[in-house]
């Protein structure tokens, strides 16, 4: 075995050295495909492959939420799971390669976390009609749509509207803040909804907006120090509630809020209950909940029991999957008011725009 390894590596180096010529010559080799996955679990049921966005499992945010859904499905159904991560600055070809390796490894159900997989999933799904795919946060007609793709999208603007209402009702200064992780259309949806919610309560309220980084710099989702600076600036300028739609950077926002005796609003999960935020949880009055975990779990169980449905599935206030948190009891006094707005959005009386 050791010798073949050496030979294969020599072949690798040779192919590298010859470059172009090498890759032409290698074509006749039998493709060894994705090889044997190392996870020793017997393929009891489904084989699920999950491709994360940059940050991967452990980002305390978006990816972790997807991971929770996967874990839940795994414990319930006993799945054979393979999780792959992304690298910052990679190309679409590398994303496509990741999905193809999952398919080649025999994973017949594949979840792609994040809109960056849109083009890649569209291509791979076309070539592998027997595999069921899901993509989170994207539904672009003709790009990532198909008979074997479920597009799981969220109405983040609706949940953000509600926490905007909470912020406006809680604010004494009539001045609130929004800290966005990275300035992308996705996070702008949070901002737009939040601002609309604030203005619905107090038309003359000030909303300070700050994005931590600009793409392609995605560190804004994971840089508490930047969150701290941004929030400090807002508090100094008179804000008393700041909504952190910034993934892991939100930690810094809450820290500053605590130091200045102000309030913060969490995002994605019910952040009041997150162990990592236990120290600052008493400043988190509410969180905008985006249940990526539920979406992932729902998708897996739909494949499991044969009720897979292709196309867009919207998670919003009405369908569930988007909501606001009440843990900690800080907004008990205004809960009735928020629920009024919630009912209006569910009934369609209030339409929350998702773009400026």
């Amino acid at each position, binding site marked *: 075995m050791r010798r073949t390894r050496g030979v294969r590596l020599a072949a690798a180096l040779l192919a590298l050295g010859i470059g172009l010529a090498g890759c032409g010559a290698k074509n006749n080799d039998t493709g060894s495909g994705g090889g044997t996955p190392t996870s020793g679990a017997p393929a009891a049921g489904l084989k699920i492959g999950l491709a994360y966005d940059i940050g991967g499992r452990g980002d305390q945010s978006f990816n972790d939420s997807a991971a929770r859904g996967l874990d839940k499905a795994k414990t319930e159904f006993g799945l054979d799971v393979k999780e792959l991560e992304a690298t910052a600055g990679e*190309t679409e070809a590398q994303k496509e390669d990741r999905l193809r390796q999952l398919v080649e490894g025999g994973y017949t159900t594949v979840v792609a976390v994040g809109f960056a997989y849109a083009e890649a999933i569209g291509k791979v799904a076309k070539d592998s009609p027997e595999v069921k795919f899901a993509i989170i946060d994207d539904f672009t007609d003709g790009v990532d749509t198909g008979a074997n793709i479920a597009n799981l999208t969220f109405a983040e603007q609706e949940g953000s509207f509600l926490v905007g209402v909470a912020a406006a009702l809680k604010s004494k200064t009539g001045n609130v803040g929004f800290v966005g992780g990275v300035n992308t259309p996705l996070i702008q949806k949070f901002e737009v909804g939040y601002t609309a919610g604030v203005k619905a309560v107090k038309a003359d309220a000030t909303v300070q907006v700050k994005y931590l980084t600009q793409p392609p710099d995605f560190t804004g989702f994971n840089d508490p120090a930047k969150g701290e600076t941004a929030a400090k600036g807002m508090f100094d300028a008179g804000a008393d509630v700041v909504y952190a739609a910034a993934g892991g950077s939100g930690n810094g926002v809450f820290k500053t809020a605590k130091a200045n005796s102000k309030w913060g609003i969490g995002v994605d999960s019910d952040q009041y209950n997150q162990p990592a935020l236990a120290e600052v949880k008493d400043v988190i009055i509410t969180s905008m909940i985006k249940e990526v975990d539920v979406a992932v779990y729902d998708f897996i169980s739909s494949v499991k029991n044969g009720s897979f449905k292709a196309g867009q599935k919207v998670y919003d206030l009405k369908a569930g999957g988007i909501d606001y948190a009440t843990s900690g009891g800080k907004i008990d006094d205004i809960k009735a008011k928020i629920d009024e707005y919630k009912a209006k959005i569910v009934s369609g009386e209030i339409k929350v725009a998702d773009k400026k």
Partner: protein
Amino acid sequence: MRKLTPRSVLLGLAAPVGALVFAAVVSAIILAVTGHAPTDAVDAMARAAERPRTLVNAVNSATYYYLAAVAVAIGFRMKLFNIGVDGQYRLAALLSAALAGAAFMEQLPSFLRITVTIVVAMLVGAAWAGLAALLKVTRGVSEVISTIMLNAVATYLVSYLNRPERLAVSTAGSNNIGTPKITEGGQVAGFTVEGSSSKLFGLIFLAAAVGVLYWFVLSRTRFGFELKATGLSESAAVASGVNVKKMVVLSMLLSGAVAGLVGMPQLLGSSYSYSLDFPAGLGFIGIAVALLGRNHPIGMAIAALLWGFLANTANSFDTSGIPREIVDIMQGVIVLSVVVAYELVRRYRVRAEQHAVGGALGRTKTLEEVSS
């Protein structure tokens, strides 16, 4: 040129090969310490090398790594550190993508359309680098500082321009945003490789041509001589009549123009639009590749291929249960050890030369020899 003797070839190879071996050993130790079998990693790499798709992707990655490396190397050859290749190529890619995707461009014949796109990218890259050059020759601002700052400015500028109300179009349901898609006439067709779903970039020839041109200008023209002379000793260059300020501006412009090309293979061969997921950070990879390839046109090509291969094996590592970050570790160790290895070999060479010269000249004859 140094004479090619077996010994000089051996010494030349010693540094890169030694560094690679050292990097492999360090990576193996790190894997072993973290509880992964290094042999699994070798297996994963071998598997990646057998997959045509991975090889095509590796060569494609190498194409833009190489362009970035040449852009950096032009500056390096005259001791100018163009850290700003990153900002230069991103700004160039955005603006040229916006132009190439514009409706009026569709009336142009395909060849002209592609040429215009590429030329505009070069001009934008050159202009952005030119700012740093201008600051250097007029105000004495270090190009290291100014190009780093200009990277940040480029990021904000790109972000400002990449909005629906400016250069971008937003697609319903998509959370991505980018310039209008370049229609078929503006795309550069790739080469289909059997067994691979990815195509080889057509613009690989552009990268090769840039490499040849780089070699020719540096070693066969007066400009190249003056550039290298300025890099070796500015005062000596001034004494022999080189206008150093002019050289700074020219080489920065050239470096920026090549930097403008970095995004082109990806833009015209695969993405067809500058959007949020356009590859970032290629300028910094270019610095590593230029260092590894010693600014040599062929050395950088080999380095770029190595880098491309490593970057594209990350997924294979991941599927084998080995953390993909091992690729970053390997790349980092390779760069560091190559730099150290070259220095060691250089010192050894100097000592060996001194020894040889000493052996030939320095021996005093003994009394017997003189008298006999």
